[in-house]
């Protein structure tokens, strides 16, 4: 008996014969694997973008903090400048305010202090009446 070569299969028939019955079971995991790889790929991209976005947000917040801190310093400066005794004295002089010539002192023992004010002032009497 003489051995014969298997005829060279051509076209679709050949591919069918080459994979035979196993074509169905092998393509499903391949597709699944491909989808998985793509999902992981996109997930990584998404995570990277999310991280970058967070970093930018963080940077933005830090800039905002710096701006607010700068503003707070400016406000502290303005407040201190407003309390400048020279400014207050100049302003008081401009408004015609002077030290009272005649003073009375009301010693408030409970408060441990003293109030010095022009004599005969009604508001001072009202103040002492309101004290415990």
């Amino acid at each position, binding site marked *: 008996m003489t*051995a014969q*070569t298997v005829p*060279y299969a051509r076209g679709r028939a050949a591919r069918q014969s080459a994979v035979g019955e196993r074509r169905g079971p092998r393509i499903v995991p391949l597709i699944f694997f491909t989808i998985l790889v793509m999902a992981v790929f996109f997930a990584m991209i998404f995570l*990277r973008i999310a*991280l*970058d976005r967070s*970093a*930018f947000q963080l*940077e933005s917040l830090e800039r905002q903090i710096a701006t607010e801190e*700068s503003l707070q*310093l*400016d406000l*502290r*400066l303005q407040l*201190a*400048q407003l*309390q*400048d*005794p*020279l400014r207050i*004295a100049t302003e008081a002089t401009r408004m015609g305010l002077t030290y009272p010539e005649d*003073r009375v*002192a009301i*010693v408030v023992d409970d408060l441990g*202090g*003293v109030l*010095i004010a022009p004599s005969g002032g009604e508001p001072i009497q009202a103040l002492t009446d309101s004290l415990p």
Partner: protein
Amino acid sequence: MSAQRIWKPGDLRLLVVGVAFVLAWAGIGFRLFDLQGNQARAAELATVGFDQRITERAIEPARGTIYDRDGVELALTIDGWNIVVDPSMLDDPTATAALLAPYADDPYEELALTLSEGQESGSRYAEIAMRVDTSRKHEVESVIAAYNSDVDKAQRVTGVFYRPQPLRVYPAGSVASQVIGLTSYDGGGGIEGLELTFNSELEGDAGRLIVELDPSGRVIPQGEVLLEPAAAGADIVTTIDREIQFAAEQALRRAIQTTGASNGAIVVLDPDTGAVLAMASYPGMDLNERSEVTPGVLRNRTVADMYEPGSTLKLLTVAAALEEGIVTADTMIDTPNRIEIGEFDYSDHGNNPPAMRVADVVAKSSNIGTIHIEQMLGRDLHYEYLTKFGLGGKVGLDVEGERQGSVPPTSEWTATSGSSIAIGYAVHTTALQMAAVYATVANDGVWTEPYLVKEIIQADGTRITTNARTRRVLSFDTAQTLREMLGQVIEIGTGSRAALADYTAGGKTGTSEKFDVEAGVYSDDTFASFIGMAPLNDPRVVVAVVLDSPHGSLEDGTSLTLGGASAAPVFAEVAQNALHQLGVAPDRD
């Protein structure tokens, strides 16, 4: 039998592509091996690559704030900027100069020249305004934005940048300028006053930020980052009361304008604690106007200027004699018109009776009487009390430039030293040292080390509080007797112009002739001083006033060279204001 192989054109293409791929990967592999397989070169290239991506930025620490005793800022650091232009990026330097001239340090002509020349020479850096605050920076940004919105893209102003430059600002301007001092112009360390003394505490420690940059110089968000935060400087809380300081400075300024004195100093102490409530020197300056800085203007004369205290030192001689039981307030002391000791003649101003009580010796400021008391005391005890009261050594105040004064040791005393020192000559003191002597009497005989810094608040919130050194020098009874004598100085003695409207007070006048170093003799100029305390029964403030070379006279003809005429009224004004500010109840109708 062999398998039949049939080549087709597609197979050949595949082969070519495959070979190309293999060669390409082989090339890459070879290059990788070439770059990384060679250890020495790999390390070098890794370093180069690291350096290209990684940059280190210094993080400047925030300089600490200096506060007054009520927590009001005397010095603080805010964000500031230097405005920088890249001339090579300008389309029209003259138009840019016209736009920015109102905000630049130089006038338009100079600015236009700078930018034009910079553009021609290819310069990329021109600082046009230094140390502007954030609001000013926003103004510049707005002006540029408004301009750019009105012109073509090619004509827009670009190339204007803002380089951070922290600004040290002093909200109270000239108030306590000599105490606070200054930092260097570039925002660096302190160069005067507390800014210098506490520079290491105020400046903090610099940090650093190591970041990975992209080729455009932007920070790569997920790149390598190493952050070592800067440690902010500590805050300094002083004992200065801004209102009392202001009142003292105003009173000193008026006194110097009235008397024509060349300069002066005032110290206000809380005798119970040793806290310095005010230290005024004249002349002063607005710390925000550096152009006003001239030699001597930042000199804290209360600790840096020494003078012979004159009659204010008589109190110490009498205090020592009282404490040692050598005299009492009523002991009679011979007071002839003049006495001769060694080569010197000593005399009194005016006509005193031939003998006076010790209390009257103080009230009338008798030189002869005080010298007799000193002779009874003896040089050793005299010297012992001079040092006990802190003379001849620094009081330990926390400021640069404090002088310790001089008290010669008894081994160097001549026949006249004791007499001269008894009446305030031959020793050199500062205004603060003399204030501390009187604060001892005010504090029932306990000498308390004056201090200027109440506490240091570190960045982590830790507070370091000052605890002043104290020592008893006099007994309670001696101190009380001395206060009564000082009250008499104002009631019936040489210090009548030091009387306060609302409070009882006591103090001592002082007038010492100024030694002319070049001529080697005492001149007609004087140091006029008054040191006192109020209220007398429970002193809350001690005020020392020293005027250098006042001249002229009052309407009644009294010479302003005398402490009782020129310095005493200043004491009254400052003490009254200070007591009102402290809320002390008046004890006088």
